[in-house]
């Protein structure tokens, strides 16, 4: 009896959840491309002192509104400052604000959402009503009102805070105000996920084994919420950068001499008709950065969503 030829065996590759997600993410080409863009932006922000060709605050009295040239690639602004250098330094602020606001609002949103979803009942009712209240407030006008309030306040606490932080105080104010109005989306998402999770059998099993509420929440619930949270955090970074720029554009955000992409646009509509390059480059940077975070978030959603099959 002759031996049967061995059947070709397709090797079974076992992959961890993380590896599956990574594989999926790599297939989203746009997301991969924009991930590289984000890495480059971060490198630019970190190495600003090294790569910035000029001092971002050095004024040149003879070079107001100088058009782009070989020496000043993006031209000069209304005070004769090099726009490229200001953009490079401004990336630090934009990314700092974006990441801080995303972190803070994700933190608040996750705590609120988990408390509402895990306990249900009265705490869910209270938190849900609070979210509704926050969502019924007119966001952009109130952002202006609150930043104006904090920026101009003469109360001793605010004055001491400003003295301690100097020029950076407006950054802290903007981060705080944006986080205060930025957590509701996360809270809603986390709440609805937590409501689904809390009745699953593994939660009952953990409880039967003696786990108490804090452990159930932190060890068993939050890790399962992470995919939702990570996607939301990425999208929040882009949103926060856009809103910070909007506030600074209206003059209620981060104040000069700190250069941000938003406040570089603050006199845009006055100068654009004669000197279009002044607002062009900072705005383009905002667009690219926000677009990058939105595509990254989209790619991560595709990668982390267990329902999508690829």
């Amino acid at each position: 009896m002759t031996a049967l030829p061995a059947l070709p065996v397709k090797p079974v590759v076992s992959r961890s959840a993380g590896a599956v997600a990574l594989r999926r993410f790599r297939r989203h080409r746009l997301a991969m491309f924009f991930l590289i863009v984000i890495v480059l932006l971060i490198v630019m922000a970190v190495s600003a002192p090294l790569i910035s060709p000029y001092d971002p605050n050095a004024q040149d009295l003879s070079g107001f509104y100088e058009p782009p040239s070989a020496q000043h690639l993006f031209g000069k602004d209304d005070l004769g400052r090099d726009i490229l250098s200001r953009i490079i330094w401004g990336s630090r602020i934009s990314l700092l604000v974006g990441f801080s606001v995303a972190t803070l609002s994700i933190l608040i949103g996750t705590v609120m959402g988990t408390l509402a979803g895990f306990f249900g009942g009265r705490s869910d009712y209270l938190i849900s009503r609070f979210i509704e209240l926050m969502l019924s407030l007119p966001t952009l006008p109130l952002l202006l009102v609150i930043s104006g309030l904090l920026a101009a306040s003469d109360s001793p606490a605010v004055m001491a805070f400003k003295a301690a932080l100097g020029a950076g105080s407006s950054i802290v104010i903007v981060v705080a105000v944006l986080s205060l109005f930025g957590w509701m989306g996360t809270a809603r998402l986390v709440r609805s996920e937590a409501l689904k999770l809390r009745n699953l059998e593994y939660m009952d099993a953990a409880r039967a084994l003696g786990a108490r509420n804090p452990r159930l929440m932190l060890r068993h619930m939050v890790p399962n919420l992470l995919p939702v949270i990570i996607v939301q955090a990425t999208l929040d970074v882009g949103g926060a950068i856009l809103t910070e720029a909007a506030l600074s554009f209206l003059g209620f955000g981060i104040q000069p001499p700190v250069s941000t992409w938003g406040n570089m646009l603050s006199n845009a509509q006055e100068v654009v008709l004669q000197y279009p390059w002044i607002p062009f480059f900072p705005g383009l940077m905002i667009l690219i950065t926000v677009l990058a975070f939105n595509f990254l978030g989209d790619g991560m959603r595709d990668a982390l969503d267990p329902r999508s099959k690829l």
Partner: protein
Amino acid sequence: MATYTFRRILQMLPLLLLISLIIYALTALQPGDPVDQLTLGNSQITPADIARLKAAYGLDQPIYLRYFYWLVQALHGDFGWSRSFSAPAALYVFQERLPNTLLLTVPALLIALLIAVPLGIYSAMRQYSLPDYVLTFFSFVAFSTPVFWLGPMVLWLFAIWLPQVTGGAVSLPPGGLGSPDLDPATAGFWAVLGDKLKYLALPLSVLALREIAVILRFMRANMLEVLNLDYVRTARAKGLPVSKVVYKHALRNAVIPIITLLSLAIPGLFGGAIITETVFSWPGMGRAIFEGLVNKDFNVVLASLTFISLLTLIFSLLADLAYAAVDPRIRYD
């Protein structure tokens, strides 16, 4: 249904009260009250005068009393006097500013719906096709573009560059409400309308572009979700033609969530129009809020913000009622 509506309106009242309290507190806590602004740079005025003025305006009262007085007056439709516009604040905002905002936002939203809903359906039906990729990419870009950048850029493009290139054949005005030298009384209706459209074109397009991006993504996602439901597959399996399944069965359910999106978008348009109105020097309500804050003319800010909040609550109620009207599965009683 009537009971439900009534109950919802009753629930709205405490929420509205709370919102008005928050808005009032944040606005009234602003340093620099109207009297400071008035007396600034006036060397003749004595501290005693200032104190007397503050007492006359009730600014020396504690904030909770001031809120109470304000609330009682507001309930009578009186939002106080606007110093910077020299008119009653409510009258000024609603008569002079609100129509301009409506003129901008309502057509923008309608145009966006007319464009984005069909495109969203098309995109969903040809998922992963080239047009779908192009539309998705476009909506990501439009969604990520700052209005305060796109606005000035199109201004330059249409008011400076294109007139230069085309020798003045294509030219749009760089912001404003209408030609200052055009008198509506003497010029014909069509001349006024044409002039208005010229001034509307850019702000309207910029505002609509963003709404198109939002609605397009939303519509595509809804349609994809519905197309994957069992009843759609059943309809196909029993031999109904694709067009009938899509346009009669799937579309109806996919359009319903648009109600929610719109109810959230409409109040947002009023507050969010601050930026568009600033860029295009369009004297609307959003711009009034901004000017009110800069000039410390808080009565204007309060009147506008109260109006927007009321609008938000009314539209969320309307959305729930519309849901029940459109979807027979939803019953409130």
